[in-house]
């Protein structure tokens, strides 16, 4: 992260979102693959929702990260 022109340390909410949803996504995916018993999956109408929601969240996290990297915050230069 370039901080040459920054007056205050850059704080980008997009990266905070990416961090939270990314961790959620990884935890849920691991849960879904290895730690969700069949009885739980039956209860959720046969959908392994941990796995699918986890994968979805990883995608969202990647999207927010890309957005933050490709269009970085520009602080007022003065």
């Amino acid at each position, binding site marked *: 992260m370039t901080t040459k022109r920054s007056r205050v340390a850059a704080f980008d*909410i997009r990266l905070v979102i990416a961090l939270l949803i990314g961790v959620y996504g990884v*935890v849920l995916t691991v849960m879904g693959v290895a730690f*969700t018993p069949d009885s739980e999956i039956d*209860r959720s109408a*046969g959908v392994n*929702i*941990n796995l699918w929601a986890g994968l979805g969240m990883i995608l969202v996290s990647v999207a927010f990260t890309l957005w933050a990297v490709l269009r970085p915050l520009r602080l007022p230069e003065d």
Partner: protein
Amino acid sequence: MVTVLADADLRLNANVVDYMLLAMYFLLVIGIGYMARRRVSTSLDFFLSGRSLPAWVTGLAFISANLGAIEVMGMSANGAEYGMPTAHYFWIGAVPAMLFLGIVMMPFYYGSKVRSVPEFMLRRFGKTAHLVNGISFATAQVLIAGANLFLLASVVNLLLGWPLWVSVVVAAMIVLSYTALGGLSAAIYNEVLQFVVIVAALLPLTIVGLYKVGGWQGLVDKVSAGPGGPEQLSSWPGNQLTGFENNFLSVLGLVFGLGFVLSFGYWTTNFVEVQRALAAKSMSAAQRTPIIGAFPKLLIPFIVIIPGMVAGVAVTELQGENKAALLAGDPAPSGATFNNALLLLMRDLLPNGMLGVAIAGLLASFMAGMAANLSSFNTVFTYDIWQTYLRRNRPDDYYLRVGRVVTVIATVLAIGTAFIASTYANLMDYLQQLFSFFNAPLFATFILGMFWRRMTPAAGWVGLVSGTATAVLVFVLTESGVWVLPGQGGAFVGAGAAFVVDIVVSVAVTAVTAPKPADQLVGLVWSLTPKESRQRSTTGEDAGWYRNPGLLAGIVLVITIVLNIIF
């Protein structure tokens, strides 16, 4: 409270993974408070984020501020009770007003550089109207913050089994810590994060819920066969929602009562919402704030109402005879209420892991609502009451300190009102009552004041007071049973009557009192504001067709109409 579900029936079976996911969320929430604090050096930074935020941030915060506990729990409860007509609260009851705010009213709010909605009142109508507006707004915020706090605490109570008052205090402390530290910026950044978490919680729940009942067609079949019948599947005419048996009256009530008076009153004059737009970095961004917010607003009903409807047919405690009893106004044999819909569905369907995310989403939504109430309350109290009437002309850092202290006091008051909120069965009813008291007459006064230069200061406050009194009168009549309007009909009628009375009284008083001189109304009234000062820039970060508020509003409008035709 006659019969309540045993706590054990609602206890969510959370395990250590769920708690870790929750803990991570709270860590980031407090972290945002600390990071935002480093940017607070003036009172404007604290109360209006230094007018520096991009439109997508303020736009999501605009929606999230309204997506509090009352909205999520109340609307899923309404979904279980009334079905698809609940979507009116989002479509006709929000979107047109949000577009109107962005296109028509924002140039006056943002362009006149006022720091709050009551301050606009002060400049347009003078002190009496300002005090009426400022005090009623501040009172309403404390009441609503209490309602949000109560719901937040009742979920913590269910989840952890803590006594209710401990849950209330702990929940209040967390919200207080980041709002007092980072001010509006902390509240807004957290609202954006909260929005994402709420969607991450409710979207998977909706998908699993639909699988559970056999897809959309399965839901249609089951709701049609159950109590309430097939009319719960189309949004119009919504007789059960309004309480009017006559289709024409019901549609009229929805369009005029909800769509026009209640929603325009709420979305265009409520400082909780307008404050988010005032924090935007330019006129263009301020105008786009409510319009960008309208896109998610169109889609939220699907992840709030559908889980409610699924709960009404798939959760043992709410389906069949239980739903029939609740619709008839009796307690359900199971002891459940519609307000339990979302929690019961989460309990039934979600495995550990997803359950933690869902709980985080619920708590996020509850905190969003309460933080929004607090951050708008402290601004109005500090700028409009303390600085204007009680302690003028102090240095800026004095008002920054007052803002932080007032946030603490407001939290204590909200803890008190949390217990008032706990006595109402359907929280949405309670909220609608408050709205009709304060918001409906406010919109009448604002719209007259912005477009009719002759309207006098005296007309401003007399109209407001008589409009509010009318709403209270209708409320008393319906509550005491003199005038019977079931469902939400009472609130619609109250709001409509308040609006009409406000207009009539304002016009009558204007006829006999003296107007303000024209030079004091520049920037506040349409015909006296030079065109260039209402204009937004179209260069730099405001350039491009996709940043044109008018075009965006048009797209939203088309989607709204299509959704209303489909459902």
